[in-house]
């Protein structure tokens, strides 16, 4: 066990630090005082540019193979990079679904042609990806999805609907799960497609969320033609394709979550240090101190638990229990953080962006509302606990 950086890691860190100092404009950091893990619509433009800069400098897709635009480094460098991003209060990465999900899945299952075609453009943010899994009647029970893809010569024709599809309104491509064999058992008849969002017959309708924003959407497919060459990992093999990259996804998404949590916590500490309650700053209140200290501890615990999983992976072992707990722990901690942010503001917490009276331009109000989704998106907390209970602890299925 050793937390010191090797000289090479140290120089990598310095490289990142120096670059961020040069290339992250101040006004970009201020927008993400405690930004959500999926960026807001109004920020897409600058976030696209931010990711492009990261790509040009070689700070994105660190663990991807060099021939596809990555750097062939390990999760350890990724860990170091993200610590630096948290320190610098860097904005989130816009094409995160492409980077954490589509890309790794293509790397694992794609043909050479597919890898050449898609991977580098994911990293550079030239092509944004969305995830077309959930449907009105298939969320937690994803395998019961009904969106159909029917073979038609060299193509498939897709008809059906997806819902809660984040960033679909800006996306160029979709990871689509569709049913190709309705007669097979439900896990066996699903195929993973790479779907061009600009195809005729695709329509996207933004859905307004409790924040007032519309970051997720409904997506309708009306007889959309998808070339068979865009099947990933074999026909009717979609469920296996989705499952095998799950752990990688957890870790890859986990880095971003760690950064968001740390930035939010630092902002909260700042808020406590300047908010007056009963005549003194809130940070002097013994109960507030207890709550903030606990958040600090829980944020660190999240980081080190992730670090243990990474170490196992680097040693060629399968991460065990330590890789499974991060998501629910993160949700619990972040939602509690946002609750405390509201509490600190007292009656001011009611004021949204649009008045000078709002605290921090109303950003906390947005993040507070946005945080409710944390325990739903990407698999609900209940489902995560089922998975931990059954796969990690070996308890029987219900």
């Amino acid at each position, binding site marked *: *066990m*050793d*937390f*010191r*950086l*090797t000289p090479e*890691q140290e120089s990598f860190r310095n490289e990142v630090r120096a670059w961020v100092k040069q290339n992250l404009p101040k006004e970009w950091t201020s927008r993400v005082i405690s930004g959500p893990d999926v960026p807001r619509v109004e920020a897409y433009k600058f976030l696209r540019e931010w990711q492009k800069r990261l790509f040009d400098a070689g700070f994105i897709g660190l663990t991807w193979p060099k021939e596809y635009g990555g750097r062939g480094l390990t999760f*350890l460098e990724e*860990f*170091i990079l993200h610590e630096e991003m948290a320190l610098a209060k860097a904005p989130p990465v816009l094409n995160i679904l492409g980077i954490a999900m589509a890309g790794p899945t293509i790397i694992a299952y794609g043909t050479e042609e597919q890898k050449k075609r898609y991977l580098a453009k994911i990293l550079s943010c030239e092509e944004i990806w969305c995830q077309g899994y959930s449907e009105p009647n298939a969320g937690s029970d994803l395998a019961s999805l009904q969106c159909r893809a029917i073979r038609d010569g060299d193509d498939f024709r897709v008809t059906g609907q997806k819902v809660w599809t984040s960033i679909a309104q800006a996306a160029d491509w979709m990871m689509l799960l569709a049913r190709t064999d309705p007669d097979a058992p439900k896990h066996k008849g699903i195929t993973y497609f790479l779907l061009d969002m600009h195809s005729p017959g695709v329509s996207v309708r933004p859905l307004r969320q409790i924040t007032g924003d519309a970051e997720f959407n409904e997506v309708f497919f009306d007889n959309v033609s998808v070339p068979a060459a865009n099947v990933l990992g074999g026909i009717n093999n979609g469920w296996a394709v989705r499952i095998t990259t799950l752990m990688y996804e957890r870790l890859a998404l986990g880095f971003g979550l760690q950064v968001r949590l740390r930035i939010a916590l630092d902002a909260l*500490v700042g808020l*406590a*240090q300047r908010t007056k309650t009963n005549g003194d700053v809130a*940070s002097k209140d*013994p109960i507030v*101190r*207890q709550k*903030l*200290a*606990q958040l*600090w*501890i*829980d944020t*660190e*615990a*999240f980081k*080190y*638990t992730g*670090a*243990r999983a*990474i*170490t*196992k992976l680097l*040693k060629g072992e399968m991460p065990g*229990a*330590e890789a*499974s*707990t991060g998501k*629910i*722990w993160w949700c619990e901690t972040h939602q509690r953080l946002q609750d405390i942010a509201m509490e600190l503001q007292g009656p001011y917490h009611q004021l949204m962006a649009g008045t000078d009276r709002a605290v921090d331009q109303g950003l906390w109000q947005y993040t507070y509302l946005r945080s409710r989704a944390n325990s739903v998106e990407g698999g609900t907390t*209940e489902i*995560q*606990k*089922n998975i*931990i*209970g*059954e796969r*990690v*602890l*070996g*308890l*029987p*299925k*219900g």
Partner: protein
Amino acid sequence: MDFGFNQEQEMLRATARKFFENECPSTFVRKMMDDPAGVTPDFWQKLAEQGWLGLIYPEAFGGVGLGFVDLAVLMEEMGRAVMPGPYFSTVLLGGLAIQEAGSESQKKEWLTKISGGAAKVTLALTEPNARWDAAGVTLQAREARGGFTLSGTKLFVHDAHTADALVVAARTANAASPEDGVSLFLVPKDARGLEVKLLPTMDQTRKLCEVTLKDVSVGADALVGEKGKGWQPLARVVDRAAVALCAEMCGGAQKILDMTTEYAKIRIAFGKPIGAYQGVKHRAADMLVDVENAKSITYYAAWAVDEQVAEAPLAASMAKAYVSDAYRKVAAAGIQLHGGIGFTWEHDLHLYFKRAKGSEFTFGDATYHRERVAQLINL
């Protein structure tokens, strides 16, 4: 950067687990609960033979010269076995105080003896005021006839009744800062005027004493470290002992989780194993989250105190805060998920439940350490 255990450490874990399964089954633990000594000479000697009494002491003093990460591995296994006896008090309190503050000759004499199993030394720090900070040290040490005279009462002293000597924290001066003027003295147990009373404790696997000193005279050579400068080394001892305790607590919590998931697979209710019900399954998942986080933050703290990085005190307090709550919660959940059997004296769960409670308050509970974290992050 590497956040895992090396091969030697994995081997130590395997050896220790086997050793405790053989030498420290719960039948032994229960015998020691009823035995005032809390340990047998035979068991103690075996710990010495394994090299575990001197695990963290330098080889020059009869130790093995390993670090706190290695120790954490061993302590986890001890916690898993709810090992009774004065290991913690001797190796991590009395012995560590001598290592941190003592002179070469004190170290040579006492650490060698401890490592070989020939002596037990505890630390008499806390008092009836139940404070963990420097201001809690009020026992007076007056200079007299070239030596010192100690008077006062120490409470919650681990294993004083079986120790050969005590490192006593005393006040030699009342300065503006309570951290100044604390001195450490090595007092033989048979010193005149020193009285030890064994107290009945909830956790019977861990013995606590009240120690009264009435005009106890010691020579100048009894001083451990510099006069009036005892708090700094003591604070390091307390941080390190707290981290070691956290590791022990993690081991206990993991054992409860293991027992509980095993039980949830075989106990049938309404025609199904109880583990199939989400009320049970989700609580077990919560236990796992607590156990894994507890380990992560403890391992980091073990590394931090070992390397003496600047963040070590913060790391120690983060760990003690987290683990104090986690072990208590996990132990309570374990009893709940066992139903009536979990409430019996016969079942081992209560041994862990009580150890969790005792450990929670040893060197400060979560509330105390969260406030310390708040201070250390400059809140």
